[in-house]
């Protein structure tokens, strides 16, 4: 029970990787705040699963790109839990990964970049600003930001999405430098293609086969593959690790 008496906020946790991460923390005894934007029923289902896994969980609605909503969410966490040990910035702007019909650079308007930067970077920025006072008072905390291995290896050029995640990695490294002296660690987990999730459900077998052929561990990641590295970076086991990006893609990227 690595997270007994620990409080964890997972953004975008009503489905996919976020839901898997929330359940994994709950299974280790944590009190998990399951953040969602609009899928209340899905979030409640995750809460139920968390409780079934042996932890405590609370569904908490907030659009993470809206500073006021985030402030209100963190105020509620402070009131209900009195502390916050871990934040997993998992929420991201809706995106369809479709290699067959992807938008090429000359077709990509700046607005698409802006939307992804808001979804990846602004959301993380907003949540980090809001949770910082809680973490600083106790002089400890772990922030885990979800990136992608496409930054290191753009197997398929999703310009707007990957550029925003690249910015997120740069953001995380600077934050790690600033917050290290305050006892707070900041790291990224960069999965490869994770299947199945809502965003990847339509991925064709040919694409998967192409990735599998180049992946030393010979398969595509599942949401559960991502949870271990996230929990590791959130726990004392990685107490001397900060500013890192941990690739979770079966060895497709080695760095």
């Amino acid at each position, binding site marked *: 029970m690595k997270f007994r008496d620990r409080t964890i906020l997972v953004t975008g946790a009503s489905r996919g990787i976020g839901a898997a991460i929330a359940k994994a923390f709950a299974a280790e005894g944590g009190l998990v705040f399951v953040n969602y934007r609009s899928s209340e029923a899905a979030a409640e289902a995750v809460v139920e699963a968390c409780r079934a896994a042996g932890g405590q969980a609370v569904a908490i609605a907030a659009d993470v790109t809206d500073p006021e909503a985030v402030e209100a969410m963190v105020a509620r966490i402070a009131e209900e839990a009195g502390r916050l040990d871990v934040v997993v910035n998992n929420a991201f702007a809706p995106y369809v990964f479709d290699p067959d019909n992807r938008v090429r650079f000359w077709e990509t308007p700046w607005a698409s970049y802006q939307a992804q930067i808001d979804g990846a970077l602004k959301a993380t920025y907003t949540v980090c600003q809001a949770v910082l006072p809680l973490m*600083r*008072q*106790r*002089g*400890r905390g772990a922030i885990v930001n979800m990136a992608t291995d496409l930054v290191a290896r753009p197997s398929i050029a999703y310009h707007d999405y990957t550029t925003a995640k690249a910015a997120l990695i740069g953001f995380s490294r600077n934050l790690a430098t600033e917050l290290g*002296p*305050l*006892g707070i660690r900041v790291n990224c987990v960069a999965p490869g293609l994770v299947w199945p999730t809502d965003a990847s459900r339509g991925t064709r077998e040919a694409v998967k086969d192409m990735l599998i052929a180049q992946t030393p561990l010979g398969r595509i990641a599942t949401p559960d593959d991502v949870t271990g590295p996230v929990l590791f970076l959130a726990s004392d086991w990685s107490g001397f690790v900060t500013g890192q990006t941990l690739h979770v893609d079966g060895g497709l990227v080695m760095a």
Partner: protein
Amino acid sequence: MIERAGHLPALAVGEVEWRELDFAAWGESVQVSVPVLGAAQARALAEHVRENARAYLKTLPVAQIVATIDKAIARLLDRDDPWRRKADAILPIVTGYDRETVRLGLSGYLRTFRAPQLQRFLAEDFAHPGILDAFQPAMKGGFTRAYGPELLLHIWAGNVPGLSLWSLISGLLVKAGTIGKVASGEPLLAGWFAQILAEIDPKLGECLAIVWWQGGDVESEGIWLAEADTIVAYGGNEALTAIRDRAPVTARFLPHGHKIGFGAISAAALDTRRAGPLARLVAHDVIRYEQQGCYSPQMLFVARGGRVSPREFAELVSQELARFAHTHPRRALSVAEASGVSAWRSTEEMRAFDAPGRVVLGDAGDPWSVVCVETAEALAPSALYRTLKVVAVDSLDDVVPLVAPFRPFLQSAAVAAPPRELFAIAERLGAAGVTRICAFGQMTAPEAGWHNDGRFNLLDLVTITEIESTAEHAADGFAGYVD
């Protein structure tokens, strides 16, 4: 492991009753045998030391005493020397300070007593150190000579390793027959040092003794107080008052009571580049000897107006303490010590509930505690063992009225400020009773020749004999060669 404390010239081990003190820390234990002398033994020992000092120590040139102490210190500084290895092995168990703290602390401290530094001690107090060897011409005419005590009694306290050496060595420099009473918290190093001196110069070894009696044993203490002509005593004011009341009125009594050290940081020192390293130095002073030293900081005054606020600086110090908890862990506290710390913390937490300007940083389970308050608060002792209160002030000028009411407890203050501000605050702190102003990171390592509690280490111990110019001139009249 059994270790014998003390140094008893002219007394065989078998003639003495020994009592065992048990120490345990860091998963190891050690039993220290301390001597319990009978009244007759104590009186005989005092006489032995006094006689030998008269016959030998007082005839040595001070330069030779310096050379001998230098040799003894060199042995303790040598990591491979058996005495030093013993000190590194046993003192962490006895004092509870972690090995690295003991090793680094000892090496830094012992360097204060090498020959050049001892010359500094002498030069600080005597315009001409030869005054300890022979009559020297005086500026006003005539000649003067300084004599150390016949029998100097040291009563040491606390458990900071080797603290006893400061006054022990001061006494030897003025050629005093020396009796040192070790504290139960660190009963070893003074005795080891005496034994090393005896190995280097056996006759010198007959001129000092290291003894022990149970604190509060009025009968034993009374015997020694009656024998000594000068008494240097460390401890709380209550204990010191008791000693003073029992000491003969003819004895010179030099007390060193408990002190409360503090730090003051100017806004000019608090930019985003320099605040971090400064916080590390503050934390270093806090962890070294768990704030047990008279010079240790117990409160920190931080000026507003820098790029880094007092609250942010408190956070940085708290984090540095977190780091030191890994590299220099705090020993396990006794129940009484732990409850003292947690009472201090929970009092502060209670007060923080309805005071928005008061923050208790970290977790209750952390082996350190930093509290930050935004309203002025007067100097007060912390709960020791890495507990520190950071008080925000508008400027360093505001610090003086917060510490001035506690003059009897003032001694060391660390100041981080630009030169003009340093001298301005030093002027006012000095007037308030602070006797030592140092840099952060150095609070627990006073420099050689430091005037402990603002007094003279050597000058306070001696008496001056003057040949007035009238005697000199009159003598001329009695010379055989007079015309």
